[in-house]
């Protein structure tokens, strides 16, 4: 009677004793330029080594430019940070997939794409969206820099077991409603700290019917409702996605791996500390209107007024959001005009996301009032999108077509909003200033972002007139 989370935990238990956190083994450590320099420095100061450089993989994503990469960085401090990662990887023997590599991309796109992410693994990275890898039935979560150093030195983490939370999503997704809308709907339902202290397992027919990329979108935003991690039990779709990728097992090792992965599911009689059921048939495309990811409404709706706030804290959040976002209670969502559109991020930058957005963009032009950009999740996706003709659809329509990186999801490079600019964004956080100081972020799916870019305001993509 164990949950999937319990089973993965048990498989990785190195040491436990009463009254202390358990020692859990880490199978895969993903690293990038922003949250590692101080950890490497800590190792050097203590005279320690990286215990398992062979289980550690790096790429660059957060602070790098997404255009003119043949030129020196405009930001010397970012350049130094990237150079520091290069030096550290050389010194400690860690493979780095740098900007000259086709594999380079957002760390949570890179891992699955290269076949590094496997069911049943424990995966950590100094980034809160590490929960993405849970789509494969891996226990994956973000850590701070002290824990990055801890994993470098010991390949383990001191962990306290989380509670189990099941979110069951059943029913066929209506036309135009995507994985992004499923997770925005879940966060809206349970609140921004609704899963704090829990590991979520997503289950139900809707989740089973999602592609692996859709599942990654759902698990990616688990942290936005406070969860430690999000998990989906692996199935044949999972195995099919992994097979043949660069770091996937092959030959006899593949067969053995699949046998081992097949048993990774929650027992029928396992008990969850909490459960929530979501009816997928009632979902619509969502648009966030406030400055936290739970403040969203259906595209056919309006900005809620204070009477709809569930408690005193929500009243405060509503009031702050109206002010910061420059919108009024009861304002219709499809009357909100946008200045920018961003299609990208570890949430929505994979090939299926780009296909969905391109379907909307085909034969149209970006509104005169909008600046729109598409930032693929990896250079491999960029190439694939070019080969499939998607890039041409975007550039013909007036979207900028960039190189891979985190870009305007968090605006650590030059891709930022100006003060007061309003953006339809496929990313994961709409916090104040997230995409640039004074910038106003509305989170949506890729097709909704493309439609807003073209119309100049939010529109219901279910009524879009698609062109051949």
């Amino acid at each position, binding site marked *: 009677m164990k949950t999937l989370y319990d089973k993965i935990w048990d*498989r990785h238990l*190195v*040491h436990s004793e009463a*009254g202390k*956190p358990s*020692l859990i*083994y880490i*199978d895969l450590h993903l690293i990038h330029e922003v949250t590692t*320099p*101080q950890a490497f*420095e800590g190792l050097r100061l*203590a005279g*320690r080594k990286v*215990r398992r450089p062979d*289980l550690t993989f790096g790429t660059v994503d*957060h*602070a790098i430019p997404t255009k003119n990469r043949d030129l020196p960085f405009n*930001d010397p*401090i970012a350049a*130094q*940070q990237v150079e*520091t990662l290069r030096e550290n990887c050389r010194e400690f023997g860690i493979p780095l997939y740098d900007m000259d590599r086709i594999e380079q991309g957002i760390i949570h796109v890179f891992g699955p794409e290269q076949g590094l992410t496997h069911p049943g693994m424990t995966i950590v990275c*100094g*980034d*809160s969206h590490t929960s993405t890898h849970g789509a494969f039935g891996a226990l994956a979560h*973000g*850590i*701070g*820099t*002290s*824990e990055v*150093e*801890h994993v470098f*030195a*010991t*390949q*383990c983490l*001191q962990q*306290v077991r989380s509670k189990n939370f099941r979110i069951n999503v059943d029913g066929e997704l209506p036309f135009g409603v995507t994985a992004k809308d499923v997770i925005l709907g879940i966060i809206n339902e349970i609140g*921004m*700290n609704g899963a*704090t*202290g829990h590991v979520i397992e997503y289950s139900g027919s809707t989740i089973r019917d999602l592609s692996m990329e859709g599942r990654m979108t759902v698990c990616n935003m688990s*942290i936005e409702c*406070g969860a430690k991690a999000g998990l989906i039990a692996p199935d044949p779709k999972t195995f099919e996605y992994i097979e043949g990728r660069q770091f996937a097992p092959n030959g006899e090792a593949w067969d053995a791996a699949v046998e081992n992965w097949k048993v990774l599911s929650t027992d029928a009689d396992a008990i969850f500390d909490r459960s929530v059921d979501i009816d997928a048939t009632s979902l619509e495309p969502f648009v966030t209107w406030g400055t*936290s990811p739970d403040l969203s409404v259906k595209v056919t709706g309006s900005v809620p007024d204070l009477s709809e706030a569930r408690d005193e*804290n*929500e009243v*405060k*959040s509503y009031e702050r959001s109206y002010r910061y976002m420059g919108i009024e209670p009861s304002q219709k969502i499809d009357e909100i005009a946008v200045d920018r559109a961003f299609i990208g991020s570890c949430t929505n930058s994979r090939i299926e996301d780009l296909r969905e957005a391109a379907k909307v963009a085909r034969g149209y032009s970006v509104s005169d009032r909008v600046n729109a950009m598409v930032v693929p999740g990896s250079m491999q996706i960029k190439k694939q999108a070019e080969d499939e003709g998607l890039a041409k659809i975007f550039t013909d329509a007036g979207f900028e077509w960039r190189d891979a990186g985190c870009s305007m999801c*968090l*605006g*650590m490079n030059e891709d930022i909003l100006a*003060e007061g600019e309003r953006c339809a964004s496929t990313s994961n*956080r709409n*916090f*104040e*200033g*997230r995409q640039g*100081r004074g910038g106003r972020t509305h989170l949506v799916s890729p097709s909704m972002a493309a439609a807003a870019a073209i119309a100049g305001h939010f529109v219901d993509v279910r009524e879009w007139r698609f062109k051949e």
Partner: protein
Amino acid sequence: MQKFTTFTGKPAPMFEPNIDTDQIIPKQFLTRIERTGFGAFLFYDWRFGSNGTPNTDFVLNQPRYSNASILVAGMNFGCGSSREHAPWALLDYGFRAVIAPGFGDIFYNNSLKNGLLPIRLDEPTVATIAENSHRVAEYTLTINLESKTVSDEHGLNVGFDIDEFSRQCLLNGLDDIALTIQHEAAITAFEARSGR
């Protein structure tokens, strides 16, 4: 890690829900490769106008909170990004503890690793402390990690929970990597038996 035993200091009230790590330390400062010096950038976009001048409305810019060392915040403080720059910035600015009804998990953990004490108290108690720090002149709080209590000189004396292991690490300033390395043999045995 810096030890934490008992501490008396001035609280500053920021009793707003969901103060995320993007607010605590905005992204434009994350390209720095040092662990120190982040205090100057704490709550940057709230503390300073777009031209860099201090925003006089912001709580930490008010003279009465100039030496504040305990932050009193609303629910879900430190939600969002895993950036450890958030506790680094709070500590570098001069904070030693944050009192809130709840915290983002990663922030909570990152704080413990750095000797910044995150204290969970029920929401009405936090509201009272926030109100007192606003209303009472020269208001101070004493945090005692030995007895797990928060008290003031006006009759407040409440207990808080923290897991015993973290408490011992903070009281003694222990390095948790060194503690894990004591289990080196168990790690090696695990690798051998699981074929890693």
